[in-house]
């Protein structure tokens, strides 16, 4: 128990050492989580938009596309 409190006391420098480690962990965790969430959100949106998109062949052939007006009406997700 003494060992543990000595460890947390950091030789009297607890107020400097612990904030250092807490800051590093918090900043790195926040950036990582934000990056993962942004990647997943954008990839999900892209997939949703692509599944609504008319097929590539039809897109390259305007006459076929206009024959099916419904295919062009993609809701703005």
């Amino acid at each position, binding site marked *: 128990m003494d060992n543990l409190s000595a460890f947390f006391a950091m030789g009297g420098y607890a107020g400097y050492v612990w*904030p*250092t480690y807490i800051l590093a962990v918090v900043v*790195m965790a926040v950036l990582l989580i934000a990056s993962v969430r*942004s990647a997943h959100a*954008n990839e999900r949106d*892209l997939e949703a938009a*692509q599944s609504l998109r008319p097929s590539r062949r039809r897109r390259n052939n305007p006459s076929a596309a206009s024959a099916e007006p419904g295919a062009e009406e993609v809701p*703005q997700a």
Partner: protein
Amino acid sequence: MHRFANPARFLRIAAIIQPWAMAVAALSFAAGLWFSLFASPADYQQGETVRIMYIHVPSAWMGMFCYTAMAVFSAMGLIWKHPLADLMARATAPVGAAFTFICLVTGSLWGKPMWGTWWVWDARLTSMLILFFLYLGYMALADAFDDPERGQKAAGILALVGVVNVPVIKWSVDWWNTLHQPASVVKMGGPAIDATMMVPLILMAVAFKAYWILVLIFRTRSEIAGAKLRTLRMAQVHAAGQAE
């Protein structure tokens, strides 16, 4: 290098690297924490505050490394018009800014007990603060235009101009009289610090580097999907305009 400019190829390679980067980052960070907090001695002069070094110094290395990487990616984007290089420069900026921020704040937390001051306008500290502002300027400029390509170009030029600051940071402690100590790890004649302190320092440096790779992958994936989404929506607007 052109072989890597293809986003599909990037995504394939990234999918392979991602789990490894995650494993290396997690393991070396855990080991680094163990060595820096438990299994390393207190300094004979600085006492337990020496443990701040294991976060502060690798963060400073990352701040400079990320900026250099960002400048190289920006140069590739500007010269060869690699869209992927531009996206990777954008993806690196927040990582560099985060590590520079950690470096500055932990430096303050170390300076107070050891130097008796939170901050001093010495060459090393000031050039590091300028690095932080360069990151903020880059990120603001990259998003400041409606046309992302123009923003990317302006930000890329800023990244290249600002790269002169990196050697200034590195040698500031030799060129000027600074309160900050000179280099003790990477120097002629070998490192001036003990192996027991070298182990946590290296582990943390490895962990931070792997962390950068991991975040770079996620942010570049996000940028690629975002760019495709923009193109797709633009094509839809265009098609809708033609249909009328």
